[in-house]
Protein backbone atom coordinates (compact mmCIF):
# COMPACT_ATOMS: atom_id res chain seq x y z
CA UNK A 1 0.00 0.00 0.00
CA UNK A 2 0.97 3.65 -0.51
CA UNK A 3 1.63 5.56 2.72
CA UNK A 4 2.57 9.22 3.16
CA UNK A 5 4.34 10.04 6.42
CA UNK A 6 4.67 13.67 7.52
CA UNK A 7 7.55 14.35 9.90
CA UNK A 8 10.85 12.48 9.81
CA UNK A 9 11.74 12.57 13.49
CA UNK A 10 12.46 9.39 15.43
CA UNK A 11 8.89 8.15 15.16
CA UNK A 12 8.36 9.17 11.54
CA UNK A 13 11.66 7.66 10.44
CA UNK A 14 10.95 4.42 12.27
CA UNK A 15 7.42 4.08 10.87
CA UNK A 16 8.71 4.82 7.37
CA UNK A 17 11.57 2.35 7.50
CA UNK A 18 9.39 -0.46 8.87
CA UNK A 19 6.74 0.14 6.20
CA UNK A 20 9.44 0.24 3.52
CA UNK A 21 11.04 -2.91 4.89
CA UNK A 22 7.66 -4.66 4.70
CA UNK A 23 7.38 -3.81 1.02
CA UNK A 24 5.03 -0.81 1.18
CA UNK A 25 5.40 2.27 -0.99
CA UNK A 26 6.39 5.09 1.42
CA UNK A 27 6.97 8.81 0.97
CA UNK A 28 8.28 10.85 3.93
CA UNK A 29 7.80 14.61 4.15
CA UNK A 30 9.89 16.93 6.32
CA UNK A 31 10.65 20.65 6.23
CA UNK A 32 14.30 19.94 7.09
CA UNK A 33 16.29 17.85 4.59
CA UNK A 34 18.71 16.83 7.36
CA UNK A 35 15.90 14.94 9.08
CA UNK A 36 16.10 12.29 6.33
CA UNK A 37 19.48 11.21 7.76
CA UNK A 38 17.45 9.33 10.36
CA UNK A 39 16.29 6.94 7.64
CA UNK A 40 18.34 3.75 7.21
CA UNK A 41 20.89 3.67 4.39
CA UNK A 42 18.90 1.03 2.50
CA UNK A 43 15.63 3.02 2.68
CA UNK A 44 13.80 2.47 -0.61
CA UNK A 45 11.02 5.01 -0.24
CA UNK A 46 10.84 8.64 -1.41
CA UNK A 47 11.52 11.84 0.50
CA UNK A 48 9.91 15.25 -0.10
CA UNK A 49 11.08 18.52 1.47
CA UNK A 50 8.16 20.68 2.50
CA UNK A 51 5.26 20.97 4.90
CA UNK A 52 2.34 18.55 4.87
CA UNK A 53 -0.20 21.30 5.52
CA UNK A 54 0.43 22.43 1.93
CA UNK A 55 -1.81 20.62 -0.54
CA UNK A 56 0.77 20.94 -3.32
CA UNK A 57 3.44 19.27 -1.20
CA UNK A 58 1.03 16.46 -0.36
CA UNK A 59 0.28 15.99 -4.06
CA UNK A 60 3.98 15.73 -4.86
CA UNK A 61 4.23 13.12 -2.10
CA UNK A 62 1.54 11.10 -3.87
CA UNK A 63 -1.33 11.71 -1.43
CA UNK A 64 -3.87 11.14 -4.21
CA UNK A 65 -2.82 7.49 -4.45
CA UNK A 66 -2.26 7.01 -0.71
CA UNK A 67 -4.31 4.57 1.33
CA UNK A 68 -2.88 5.97 4.56
CA UNK A 69 -1.51 9.26 5.88
CA UNK A 70 0.47 9.58 9.11
CA UNK A 71 1.08 12.99 10.74
CA UNK A 72 3.91 12.78 13.29
CA UNK A 73 5.70 16.16 13.31
CA UNK A 74 6.48 17.83 16.63
CA UNK A 75 3.66 20.30 16.21
CA UNK A 76 0.22 19.21 17.38
CA UNK A 77 -1.52 21.87 15.33
CA UNK A 78 0.44 21.06 12.20
CA UNK A 79 -0.47 17.38 12.58
CA UNK A 80 -4.11 18.24 13.18
CA UNK A 81 -4.33 20.52 10.16
CA UNK A 82 -2.49 18.13 7.83
CA UNK A 83 -4.70 15.23 8.96
CA UNK A 84 -7.80 17.25 8.15
CA UNK A 85 -6.40 18.24 4.75
CA UNK A 86 -5.66 14.57 3.97
CA UNK A 87 -9.10 13.47 5.05
CA UNK A 88 -11.25 16.29 3.67
CA UNK A 89 -9.41 17.41 0.56
CA UNK A 90 -7.95 14.07 -0.55
CA UNK A 91 -10.29 11.46 1.00
CA UNK A 92 -7.39 9.34 2.27
CA UNK A 93 -9.03 6.24 3.82
CA UNK A 94 -6.77 5.93 6.86
CA UNK A 95 -5.45 9.07 8.53
CA UNK A 96 -3.52 8.87 11.82
CA UNK A 97 -2.43 11.93 13.73
CA UNK A 98 -0.16 12.34 16.76
CA UNK A 99 -1.33 14.91 19.32
CA UNK A 100 0.70 15.48 22.51
CA UNK A 101 -1.91 17.61 24.28
CA UNK A 102 -4.48 15.20 25.80
CA UNK A 103 -7.31 17.74 25.68
CA UNK A 104 -6.71 18.55 22.02
CA UNK A 105 -6.43 14.82 21.34
CA UNK A 106 -9.78 14.19 22.98
CA UNK A 107 -11.43 17.03 21.05
CA UNK A 108 -10.21 15.86 17.65
CA UNK A 109 -10.95 12.19 18.37
CA UNK A 110 -14.54 13.27 18.99
CA UNK A 111 -14.42 15.10 15.66
CA UNK A 112 -13.58 11.81 13.99
CA UNK A 113 -9.80 11.87 13.56
CA UNK A 114 -7.79 8.77 14.40
CA UNK A 115 -5.44 10.10 17.05
CA UNK A 116 -2.53 8.85 19.12
CA UNK A 117 -1.58 10.71 22.30
CA UNK A 118 1.93 9.80 23.51
CA UNK A 119 1.36 11.78 26.73
CA UNK A 120 -1.50 9.59 27.93
CA UNK A 121 -0.16 6.26 26.69
CA UNK A 122 3.34 6.90 28.03
CA UNK A 123 2.08 8.16 31.38
CA UNK A 124 -0.10 5.08 31.71
CA UNK A 125 2.83 2.80 30.91
CA UNK A 126 5.09 4.49 33.44
CA UNK A 127 2.39 4.58 36.12
CA UNK A 128 1.78 0.91 35.49
CA UNK A 129 5.33 0.23 36.68
CA UNK A 130 5.12 2.64 39.59
CA UNK A 131 1.69 2.06 41.09
CA UNK A 132 0.20 -0.77 39.01
CA UNK A 133 -2.21 -0.70 36.11
CA UNK A 134 -5.38 -0.66 38.17
CA UNK A 135 -4.57 2.37 40.26
CA UNK A 136 -3.06 4.11 37.23
CA UNK A 137 -6.33 3.62 35.38
CA UNK A 138 -8.32 5.23 38.20
CA UNK A 139 -6.06 8.25 38.02
CA UNK A 140 -6.71 8.76 34.32
CA UNK A 141 -9.09 11.40 33.11
CA UNK A 142 -8.50 13.64 36.10
CA UNK A 143 -5.10 14.56 34.75
CA UNK A 144 -6.29 16.89 32.02
CA UNK A 145 -3.67 19.54 31.47
Amino acid at each position, binding site marked *: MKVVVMGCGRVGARISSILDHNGHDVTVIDTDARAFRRLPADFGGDTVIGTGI*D*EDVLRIAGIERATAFVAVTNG*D*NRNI*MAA*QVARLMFDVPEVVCRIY*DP*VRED*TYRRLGLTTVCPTTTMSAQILDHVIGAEEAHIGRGSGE*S
Partner: protein
Amino acid sequence: MYIIVVGGGKVGFYLTKSLLAEGHEVLLIERAGDKVDAFVERFGKVVIQGDGAEAAVLAAAGAARADVVIAVTGEDEDNLVVCQMARQKFHVGRTIARVNNPKNEALFKKLGIDVTVSQTNFILTLIEQSIPEKSFVHLLSLKFADLAMVEARVSDQSPVVGKSLAQINLPDKTVVAAVARDGRLFVPSSSTELRPGDDLIAITQPEQEDSLRRILGCDSAA
Protein backbone atom coordinates in the same frame (compact mmCIF):
# COMPACT_ATOMS: atom_id res chain seq x y z
CA MET B 1 -18.96 42.27 23.29
CA TYR B 2 -16.31 40.03 24.78
CA ILE B 3 -13.62 39.32 22.19
CA ILE B 4 -10.58 37.07 22.58
CA VAL B 5 -7.67 37.79 20.23
CA VAL B 6 -5.00 35.10 19.83
CA GLY B 7 -1.59 36.14 18.53
CA GLY B 8 0.21 39.35 19.45
CA GLY B 9 1.99 40.14 16.21
CA LYS B 10 1.40 43.40 14.34
CA VAL B 11 -2.13 42.37 13.37
CA GLY B 12 -3.02 41.25 16.90
CA PHE B 13 -1.55 44.39 18.42
CA TYR B 14 -3.47 46.86 16.26
CA LEU B 15 -6.62 44.77 16.37
CA THR B 16 -6.56 44.77 20.18
CA LYS B 17 -5.87 48.48 20.22
CA SER B 18 -8.78 49.37 17.97
CA LEU B 19 -11.23 46.94 19.60
CA LEU B 20 -10.40 48.44 23.00
CA ALA B 21 -10.88 51.93 21.58
CA GLU B 22 -14.31 50.89 20.34
CA GLY B 23 -15.20 50.01 23.91
CA HIS B 24 -15.19 46.21 23.64
CA GLU B 25 -13.99 43.91 26.37
CA VAL B 26 -10.86 42.38 24.86
CA LEU B 27 -8.35 39.76 25.98
CA LEU B 28 -5.18 39.13 24.00
CA ILE B 29 -3.42 35.77 24.29
CA GLU B 30 0.25 35.73 23.28
CA ARG B 31 2.77 32.92 23.61
CA ALA B 32 5.98 34.93 24.06
CA GLY B 33 6.45 36.21 27.60
CA ASP B 34 8.54 39.27 26.69
CA LYS B 35 5.88 40.47 24.25
CA VAL B 36 3.21 39.97 26.92
CA ASP B 37 5.12 42.19 29.36
CA ALA B 38 5.32 44.96 26.77
CA PHE B 39 1.60 44.64 25.96
CA VAL B 40 0.58 44.72 29.63
CA GLU B 41 2.55 47.92 30.02
CA ARG B 42 0.73 49.36 27.03
CA PHE B 43 -2.83 48.03 27.42
CA GLY B 44 -3.07 47.07 31.10
CA LYS B 45 -4.19 43.67 32.29
CA VAL B 46 -5.96 42.58 29.14
CA VAL B 47 -3.14 40.30 28.00
CA ILE B 48 -2.31 36.80 29.16
CA GLN B 49 0.64 34.60 28.30
CA GLY B 50 -0.07 31.17 26.87
CA ASP B 51 -0.81 28.94 23.90
CA GLY B 52 -4.26 29.87 22.59
CA ALA B 53 -4.78 26.37 21.21
CA GLU B 54 -4.55 24.90 24.69
CA ALA B 55 -7.88 24.33 26.39
CA ALA B 56 -6.60 25.37 29.82
CA VAL B 57 -5.46 28.73 28.43
CA LEU B 58 -8.75 29.32 26.63
CA ALA B 59 -10.63 28.35 29.81
CA ALA B 60 -8.56 30.80 31.87
CA ALA B 61 -9.32 33.45 29.26
CA GLY B 62 -13.03 32.87 29.80
CA ALA B 63 -13.65 31.48 26.32
CA ALA B 64 -16.96 30.02 27.44
CA ARG B 65 -18.48 33.51 27.66
CA ALA B 66 -16.66 34.97 24.66
CA ASP B 67 -18.78 36.25 21.80
CA VAL B 68 -15.97 36.12 19.28
CA VAL B 69 -12.56 34.45 19.06
CA ILE B 70 -10.15 35.90 16.51
CA ALA B 71 -6.96 33.96 15.69
CA VAL B 72 -4.34 36.12 13.96
CA THR B 73 -1.02 34.36 14.47
CA GLY B 74 1.38 33.98 11.58
CA GLU B 75 0.79 30.23 11.39
CA ASP B 76 -2.32 28.91 9.67
CA GLU B 77 -2.30 25.62 11.59
CA ASP B 78 -2.39 27.52 14.90
CA ASN B 79 -5.20 29.80 13.74
CA LEU B 80 -7.21 26.79 12.57
CA VAL B 81 -6.83 24.82 15.81
CA VAL B 82 -7.52 27.87 18.02
CA CYS B 83 -10.82 28.44 16.20
CA GLN B 84 -11.78 24.77 16.20
CA MET B 85 -11.03 24.41 19.92
CA ALA B 86 -13.00 27.58 20.67
CA ARG B 87 -15.95 26.24 18.76
CA GLN B 88 -15.86 22.57 19.83
CA LYS B 89 -14.85 22.91 23.45
CA PHE B 90 -16.23 26.32 24.41
CA HIS B 91 -19.09 26.74 21.94
CA VAL B 92 -17.95 30.19 20.90
CA GLY B 93 -20.54 31.55 18.49
CA ARG B 94 -18.23 33.27 16.05
CA THR B 95 -14.69 32.36 15.07
CA ILE B 96 -12.51 34.42 12.79
CA ALA B 97 -9.18 33.19 11.41
CA ARG B 98 -6.42 34.99 9.63
CA VAL B 99 -5.30 32.93 6.63
CA ASN B 100 -1.66 33.50 5.76
CA ASN B 101 -1.62 31.16 2.79
CA PRO B 102 -4.58 31.91 0.46
CA LYS B 103 -4.66 28.22 -0.49
CA ASN B 104 -6.01 27.42 2.96
CA GLU B 105 -9.10 29.57 2.72
CA ALA B 106 -11.27 26.81 1.22
CA LEU B 107 -10.17 24.30 3.86
CA PHE B 108 -10.91 26.68 6.73
CA LYS B 109 -14.39 27.31 5.36
CA LYS B 110 -14.96 23.59 5.00
CA LEU B 111 -13.90 23.07 8.60
CA GLY B 112 -16.49 25.50 9.91
CA ILE B 113 -14.47 28.65 10.59
CA ASP B 114 -17.06 31.45 10.32
CA VAL B 115 -14.89 34.12 8.74
CA THR B 116 -11.49 33.90 7.12
CA VAL B 117 -9.35 36.92 6.40
CA SER B 118 -6.67 36.43 3.81
CA GLN B 119 -4.29 39.34 3.91
CA THR B 120 -2.47 38.12 0.81
CA ASN B 121 -5.67 38.18 -1.25
CA PHE B 122 -6.62 41.47 0.33
CA ILE B 123 -3.37 43.11 -0.68
CA LEU B 124 -3.64 41.69 -4.20
CA THR B 125 -7.16 43.14 -4.52
CA LEU B 126 -6.03 46.54 -3.26
CA ILE B 127 -3.19 46.60 -5.76
CA GLU B 128 -5.54 45.52 -8.53
CA GLN B 129 -7.92 48.35 -7.65
CA SER B 130 -5.18 50.92 -7.90
CA ILE B 131 -4.08 49.90 -11.37
CA PRO B 132 -5.83 52.63 -13.42
CA GLU B 133 -6.09 50.70 -16.71
CA LYS B 134 -8.23 47.99 -15.19
CA SER B 135 -11.78 48.41 -16.45
CA PHE B 136 -13.41 45.68 -14.39
CA VAL B 137 -12.42 45.12 -10.77
CA HIS B 138 -13.69 42.74 -8.15
CA LEU B 139 -14.18 44.90 -5.05
CA LEU B 140 -15.61 42.64 -2.41
CA SER B 141 -16.99 39.16 -1.81
CA LEU B 142 -20.18 39.10 0.21
CA LYS B 143 -19.66 35.54 1.33
CA PHE B 144 -22.79 35.07 3.40
CA ALA B 145 -25.00 35.83 0.45
CA ASP B 146 -22.65 34.42 -2.19
CA LEU B 147 -22.56 37.79 -3.93
CA ALA B 148 -19.75 39.94 -5.23
CA MET B 149 -19.36 43.68 -5.59
CA VAL B 150 -17.57 44.81 -8.74
CA GLU B 151 -16.54 48.09 -10.28
CA ALA B 152 -16.68 48.51 -14.06
CA ARG B 153 -15.64 51.39 -16.30
CA VAL B 154 -17.79 52.10 -19.38
CA SER B 155 -15.39 52.68 -22.27
CA ASP B 156 -15.94 54.63 -25.55
CA GLN B 157 -16.35 51.39 -27.44
CA SER B 158 -18.62 49.72 -24.90
CA PRO B 159 -21.83 48.32 -26.44
CA VAL B 160 -23.85 49.77 -23.55
CA VAL B 161 -23.00 53.43 -24.27
CA GLY B 162 -26.19 55.39 -24.83
CA LYS B 163 -28.37 52.60 -23.52
CA SER B 164 -30.53 52.87 -20.44
CA LEU B 165 -30.12 50.27 -17.70
CA ALA B 166 -33.52 48.84 -18.65
CA GLN B 167 -32.24 48.20 -22.19
CA ILE B 168 -29.19 46.27 -21.03
CA ASN B 169 -29.66 42.57 -20.60
CA LEU B 170 -27.82 42.12 -17.30
CA PRO B 171 -27.01 38.62 -16.00
CA ASP B 172 -29.30 36.97 -13.51
CA LYS B 173 -29.36 38.46 -9.99
CA THR B 174 -27.27 41.45 -10.98
CA VAL B 175 -28.02 45.07 -10.14
CA VAL B 176 -26.16 48.26 -10.87
CA ALA B 177 -26.21 49.82 -7.41
CA ALA B 178 -24.42 53.06 -8.13
CA VAL B 179 -22.95 55.10 -10.97
CA ALA B 180 -20.03 57.48 -10.57
CA ARG B 181 -20.08 60.23 -13.22
CA ASP B 182 -18.06 63.45 -13.27
CA GLY B 183 -16.94 62.91 -9.70
CA ARG B 184 -20.49 62.41 -8.45
CA LEU B 185 -21.97 59.13 -7.19
CA PHE B 186 -25.68 58.47 -7.68
CA VAL B 187 -28.15 55.59 -7.57
CA PRO B 188 -29.31 54.96 -11.14
CA SER B 189 -32.88 54.32 -12.23
CA SER B 190 -33.92 51.98 -15.03
CA SER B 191 -33.94 54.99 -17.40
CA THR B 192 -30.38 56.11 -16.58
CA GLU B 193 -28.43 56.14 -19.83
CA LEU B 194 -24.81 55.10 -19.61
CA ARG B 195 -22.05 57.34 -20.90
CA PRO B 196 -18.42 56.70 -21.70
CA GLY B 197 -16.30 57.12 -18.56
CA ASP B 198 -19.08 56.09 -16.18
CA ASP B 199 -17.92 53.92 -13.30
CA LEU B 200 -20.53 51.37 -12.33
CA ILE B 201 -20.73 49.67 -8.94
CA ALA B 202 -22.66 46.45 -9.38
CA ILE B 203 -23.74 43.60 -7.13
CA THR B 204 -23.67 40.26 -8.88
CA GLN B 205 -23.09 36.56 -8.33
CA PRO B 206 -19.42 35.51 -8.41
CA GLU B 207 -20.04 33.12 -11.32
CA GLN B 208 -21.71 35.92 -13.31
CA GLU B 209 -18.73 38.26 -13.13
CA ASP B 210 -17.36 37.13 -16.48
CA SER B 211 -20.62 37.51 -18.37
CA LEU B 212 -21.19 40.95 -16.80
CA ARG B 213 -17.70 41.89 -17.94
CA ARG B 214 -18.58 40.84 -21.50
CA ILE B 215 -21.95 42.59 -21.56
CA LEU B 216 -20.38 45.87 -20.42
CA GLY B 217 -17.59 45.44 -22.95
CA CYS B 218 -14.82 45.46 -20.38
CA ASP B 219 -12.04 43.43 -21.91
CA SER B 220 -9.24 42.63 -19.54
CA ALA B 221 -6.94 44.24 -22.11
CA ALA B 222 -8.96 47.47 -22.20
